[in-house]
């Protein structure tokens, strides 16, 4: 299975860097069948990339979600939130479906962050802890990507994957 992981965020905006930080770590692991991409925002050309893969994981900082991270399946939608400065996962997925002619299973890994207000490099202590948990979860998942379809949404996602491997 060919899986695409996209880490989204700005390394200079505190915990907004969670997505690219995860992507950087995954790239070092060089897991077979896994393509890793990172950008400040999601962008339309990634629709073409999505259509070329069998599953997609979008890793992003989450300002208010579950700790240490949330996991949910993304459904395509038609929204007016599109701008030249970014596109929502839902719109991107809808566009990818038009290009690929079929839906691509897409999941959002929302890593809980806490500090976003300043122009400052470096993750907060809490975000670092959550990043480690998200990385451990994702690494296991990417080594057995067939589990992707069977995982429920948060809560309890980390336990789900552990038990599925037991």
């Amino acid at each position, binding site marked *: 299975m060919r899986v695409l992981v996209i880490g989204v965020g*700005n*390394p200079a905006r505190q915990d907004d860097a969670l997505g690219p930080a995860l992507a950087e770590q995954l790239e070092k692991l060089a897991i077979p069948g896994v393509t890793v991409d990172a*950008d400040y925002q999601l962008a339309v050309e990634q629709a073409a990339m999505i259509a070329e893969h069998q599953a997609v994981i979008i890793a992003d900082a989450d300002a208010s*979600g579950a700790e240490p991270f949330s996991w949910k399946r993304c459904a395509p939608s038609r929204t007016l939130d599109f*701008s*030249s*400065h970014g596109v*929502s996962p839902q719109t991107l997925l809808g566009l990818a479906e038009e*290009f690929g002619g079929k839906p691509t299973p897409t999941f959002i890994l929302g890593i809980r962050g806490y500090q976003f207000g300043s122009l400052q490099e470096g993750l907060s202590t809490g975000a670092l802890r959550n990043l480690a948990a998200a990385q451990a979860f994702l690494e296991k998942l990417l080594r057995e990507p067939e589990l992707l379809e069977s995982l429920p949404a948060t809560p309890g996602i980390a336990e789900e994957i552990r038990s599925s491997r037991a």
Partner: protein
Amino acid sequence: MTTATSSRRVVIEPVTRVEGHGKVTLLLDEAGKVSQTRLHIVEFRGFERFIQGRPYWEVPVLVQRLCGICPVSHHLAASKAMDVIVGAERLTPTAEKLRRLMHYGQMFQSHALHFFHLVSPDLLFGFEADPAVRNVIGVAQKYPELAVQGVMMRKYGQEIIKATAGKKIHGTGAVPGGINKSLTEAERDEFLKQLPQMLTWAQSALDLCKRYTLDHFDELASFGSFSSSHMSLVRADGAMDLYDGQLRAVDEKGSVIFDQLAPGDYASRIKEEVRDWSYMKFPFIETLGPDKGFYRVGPLARLNTCDYIDTPRAEAERKEFRKLAGAKPVQATMAYHWARLIELLHAGEKIEQLLNDRDLLSSERMVRGGQRRGEGVGIIEAPRGTLIHHYKVDENDQVTMANLIVSTTHNNEPMNRAVKAVADRYFDGRPVTEGMLNRVEVAIRAYDPCLSCATHAMGRMPLTLTVIGADGRELQTLTKEG
């Protein structure tokens, strides 16, 4: 989306399909007519503090984090300023041409993206069409070839940026005094192979936009329109130059206000006014004063200031475009789109010229040994308009001062005027509809403001419209989750 009753004060927050935290406030009089408009834009603040104390050579990399959609513009403007700091204003031919290739790749992808995915839904379906249809997926379904072209053109430009600047998040292509990577023959050949298709698509998009503009010009000419001065870089011979040159400004009649103003002298002509209701400053041309000295930047301004374009197909299109207003500058806000697509074609032609230049393959990438200076200004024509980077560096190589004027700041007053013009025409006291709001956004999107685009984390971008009565009561609220 939630709605309450009628209104005196209308707040749109933020502006949909314009990224980040923008807010439009319409102040209505007793009769429900618009008495004042205010476009609030949240700027990326704190950059000066972030950059102070950093070694100057880090700056071209750090500034890319100001904007995720056009990091190349900040990267190159900062690099040009640092060229001055290291005494290397005249780069090697290879370095200058590779930077130009990077810049035209950026221009190509940005203009293509803007047209296909921000503008085409409005043009193809109409300003007041059902939002469920009037979006990029609607375009992909009804005009699949257009959507594919938009994505592939964006991808082409991005690939050029990757080949010249490196990674998307940590691009390091340009460095003070030059560039650190040449193009390989294989990269060049691949770009050349795809180029004819890109030029065909660029022309096709331009034809579509031109036809639409001319067919609807009776309505579009006055939509969000007003008269203003215009400013951009031009080459010494008056040609359009998006990477380098001197500043030229023309007034609303087309008369030159100043010309061949060196980048380092920008502050002698351009001042910035502060208004108590906005964090964003309002630049103006000093000789005209704060009330009359506002000016526009970006594609429309560049088409109005230059004497000609040095690529044949874009020059033929420029001549046709300028016929819209005779000898005077074109003032229609909606003409930004047509102008932008002329630049898209121009960028494609420039890419073709550069790719056929063997200097791109040379290893002569750096100038060294120049006279070290303590202050440098770099100006570039970014996709959305003139971008000024100004730095001071101390004897320890640390940055002590940074001042940036981005295109959205130059266009602050013009955007406010565009919103006012639309509101005057379409807001008449009736409850605000999505179609009416979209007309306001159509005017703003013509300028494509770069808002505070750095933080986008999930759950942080609700879209809200609030209507507040003269007595301060909240009367109408529209919320769209982003």
